[in-house]
């Protein structure tokens, strides 16, 4: 088993074996990242392939000081952003069924109630712009100002898209929860 350090050195020399090892070790994690930014697995795999090409050919850019997995994630996220921009003109813009009113009591979502498949699914169903902002802010932890720069949008747009994304997600999750509890109740 090669260490990350050896894999990186191997990849820098374009060694096929090191490239394969890097893929075997991190492709599953990176596909998990890509799928958050895509509408389906096929699109996520496209992003993943492009990410690996960037990783292989730019591995010298990795300074070696920060976390390697963090660098990999960053490349994948940047690739997803490029992909989003490239496909922007092909997407149909889906307007949200106007504002989902925030008439909730405190609905807390228990962590284990939803499977990660279900969470991926609601993310995949979001309009692309909402999905980008939500992922970058909530999961990757970027600031709205940074997101605005990355996506080439206004800071306020980033903020409002984030809050709309949340409203849609909350609505979808609540529906999903009702459905799930009805099903489990019906089965018992």
């Amino acid at each position: 088993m090669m260490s990350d350090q050896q894999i990186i050195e191997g990849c820098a020399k374009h060694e096929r074996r090191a490239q394969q090892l890097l893929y075997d070790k991190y492709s599953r994690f990176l596909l998990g990242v890509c799928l958050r930014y895509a509408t389906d697995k096929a699109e996520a795999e496209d992003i993943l392939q492009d990410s690996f090409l960037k990783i292989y050919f730019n591995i010298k850019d990795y300074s070696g000081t920060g976390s390697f997995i963090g660098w990999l994630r960053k490349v994948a996220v940047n690739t997803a952003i490029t992909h989003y921009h490239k496909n922007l003109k092909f997407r149909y813009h889906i307007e949200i069924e106007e504002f989902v009113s925030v008439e909730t009591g405190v609905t807390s979502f228990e962590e284990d109630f939803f499977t990660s498949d279900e969470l991926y699914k609601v993310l995949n169903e979001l309009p692309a712009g909402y999905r980008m902002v939500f992922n970058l802010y909530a999961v990757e932890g970027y600031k709205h100002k940074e997101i605005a720069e990355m996506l080439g949008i206004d800071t306020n747009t980033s903020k409002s898209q984030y809050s709309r994304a949340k409203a849609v997600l909350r609505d979808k999750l609540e529906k999903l929860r009702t459905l799930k509890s009805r099903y489990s109740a019906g089965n018992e």
Partner: protein
Amino acid sequence: MEDLREDRMLSDLFKQKLENEEITPSPSLSSNLMRRVGMREFLRFNPSRINIWYAGAAAAAGTALTLILTQSPGKQSREIPEPLPVEINKESAENTVNKNLSVPVITITENRQVAKSDNRIVDTEVSVSTDDNKPAAVSSGSNAVQSAEAQKVNTLPTTAVLNDATGKNKLISINRPQSFIEASVAEGCPPLKVSFRSLAGSVDSCSWYFGDAGYSSSKDPVWIFDNAGDYTITLQVFSSGVKSVSSVVINVHPKPLAKFDITPEYAVLPRDEISFHNYSEGAEKYFWNFGDGTTSDLFEPHHNYRKYGDYNVRLNAISEFGCSDSLVIYNAFSSSGNYIEFPNAFIPNPTGPSGGYFSPKSDESSQIFHPVFSGVTDYQLRIFSKRGILIFESNDVNYGWDGYYKGQLCDPGVYIWKVRGNFINNGQFTKVGDITLLKN
């Protein structure tokens, strides 16, 4: 405050569950990726990594080039039964060449450029070289070398004076104001009609080879090229026993193919928006005529017709060279067709049974299972559960199933339907299918 806390929880939920989630990629992804890596590395040429692959690629490229070069005269010789030597018959050779010397070889190279602007051929120069160590007949070897910009053709200019009694290697350049082929066009769309004219003046005979196995012996022939391709048109003329050859290339562009489809197949007008699906090939511009007086130049337009009618929908597909093709669907939305079509899924209204009567306006969200139809008279629809229990029956085509059975919303899942009935003029119909009940 409350809201803020809740938001945090929502974001944290996704962060905690998905931040380090792993998904296994499709098995084929790895090999596809490695292929792309290989391609990319190959294209990034690095002298320090020259290996067998580069050598192989260079060899392959060389072979391909050689093949291309040797193919072009081969092609031509298939069309022209014999090589085209410049022959000098005995009398003229004796008249012009000193008998003490062997007969010189005369290689005449003509550089000609095709001026695209006026589609005429402008001739630039003809060079004549002689070499006394070879036989008198010159093969048309230089026909083999054709560059994209200029064609080199063996020719014997009628005005050339072979003032070469010494017979030593000598290159003579003469300017010729005109080639002896004039073509009405140099390129165009198939079928391309081209009028050729021989400018060789008065000659004993003309032989035209059109490059598509066609032949003519008239002086000014007209030829039609049916298929796309680059055709080398060669003219041989005999004048006082001297054979002269000239050629010109005519470029016939590929023709696009116009092809489209219309959905929905059974449109309900004016309710349905009609989508036009474009399957054209080799085109870059499109022009639609919907047949009701409206047009579009989109790739795949949508259109709303106001009423049924015998519309002729036409698509013109235009290629980058301006070649066009068109397809017409005649009588696209005539009202005479009777039909009945059912959806395959619906989402009942969860708040309670609605009774099942619908109109296109009241059932925009498909809460009632019902057909779209035209010309239906008698009608019986029955819906069964998977266990075979009859859960719905209707004898009115305007009365569909709301998803309830005995006041209870049915479980999501698949149900079987069967319909029988009559069309106004087309006789009986019977159809069976399944419907998936979804929950909102």
